[in-house]
């Protein structure tokens, strides 16, 4: 094989391959790799930062969620208390309204009874007067004479009693 037989090329091959490798290594180390490796590291750092930010945001979101849950729980408790208070207040108002209405109704009833009674007395008075006039006039016409005061009073009283008795029976 030429690779074993051509010993005279060993020295140049060894020399140039090792020298070339050394120069190649130096050039890559000095000029080629650093910017690319830096870009890689920058990207890794960026990804690491982004992941950390995402993790922080996740923790923050979790904290906010817990805060919201606490707030909602508190709000629910407050709302429940308000509803209970409102229900209690409504019950009280309702009871008071009923009580007031009942009192008013009673008052109205009393007023009505009083008015009825007043009207009744007034009517009775008017009836009495009318009856007395009617009775005197009728009697005088029948008897063709004037009555004295005592007769008038007696006849009026009797007529009134009869009319009233009749009215009371009818009522």
């Amino acid at each position, binding site marked *: *094989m*030429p*690779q*074993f037989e*051509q010993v*005279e*090329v*060993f*020295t*140049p*091959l*060894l*020399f*140039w*391959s*090792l020298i*070339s*490798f050394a120069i*190649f*290594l130096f*050039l*890559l*180390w000095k*000029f*080629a*790799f650093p*910017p*690319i*490796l*830096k*870009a*890689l590291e*920058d*990207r890794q750092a*960026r990804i690491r930062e982004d992941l950390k930010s995402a993790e922080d945001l996740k923790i923050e979101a979790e904290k906010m969620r817990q805060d919201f849950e606490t707030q909602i729980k508190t709000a629910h408790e407050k709302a429940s208390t308000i509803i209970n208070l409102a229900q209690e207040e409504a019950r009280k108002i309702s009871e008071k309204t009923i009580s007031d209405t009942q009192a008013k109704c009673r008052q109205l009833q009393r007023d009505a009874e009083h008015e009825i009674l007043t009207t009744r007395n007034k009517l009775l008075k008017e009836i009495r007067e009318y009856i007395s006039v009617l009775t005197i006039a009728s009697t005088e016409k029948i008897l063709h004479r004037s009555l004295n005061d005592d007769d008038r009073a007696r006849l009026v009283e009797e007529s009134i009693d009869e009319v009233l008795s009749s009215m009371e029976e009818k009522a």
Partner: protein
Amino acid sequence: MAGENPLHHFELHPLVHMHLGGLDISINKAVIAMWIGLALIFLFFMLVVKSGTQLIPGKLQSLAEVALEFIRGLVDEFIGEEGKKYFHFVAAIFFFIFACNVIGLVPGSYTMTSQLVVTGAFAVMIFVMTLFIGFARHGLHFLSILVPPGVPKIMIPFMVIVETISMLARPISLSVRLFANMTAGHTVLGVLFALTMSAPIWLGWLPFGFTVIINVLEVAIALIQAYIFATLTCVYIGDVIKLH
């Protein structure tokens, strides 16, 4: 004739005669092919660098980053945290061998790694470097690498011999593997090409087709061999750092 001897294209002849203090450093086809391969690799990286590395990479930058990430993965896996300082060396080894392997597939070119003296020199360099790292890091305790943990005391002398042979075999296997793969691949390509040239036109397409297929396969082999060489370099460095 090239058609008569498939190993003929491994022969080298000086193109530029040079001497350095009595040392022959003549430039031949292999050296020029190697320089072209290395220059192409270096220009590729410089093109990426000069284009400006972006946070969101373009196609070229992505390719360069994938290659470097791949090597960094090897270094991290086999050497560990301390591997960072050997990254540039391992990457240079990988790209050097890859460049030499691939440039040799260009017709009329030459594969520097098909020379055992070259692969042997690199294997010995790595072996010596691992010894240097081992002794620098652990002192004489580095010799405990020859005694695997858990070995009964009576077995220690035997294991020292076995491990020493194993250690010495490393540069040999490292260099011969690469040399043999490259030589075999190019020999097959040479034979197929010779068949293409010697066959009549109506039959010549068959070996030519095989030449194309084998050439594509050789590109993959070139990459795989560079990967194996770089991986074993990492393994050897990792071994001497961790001892066991």
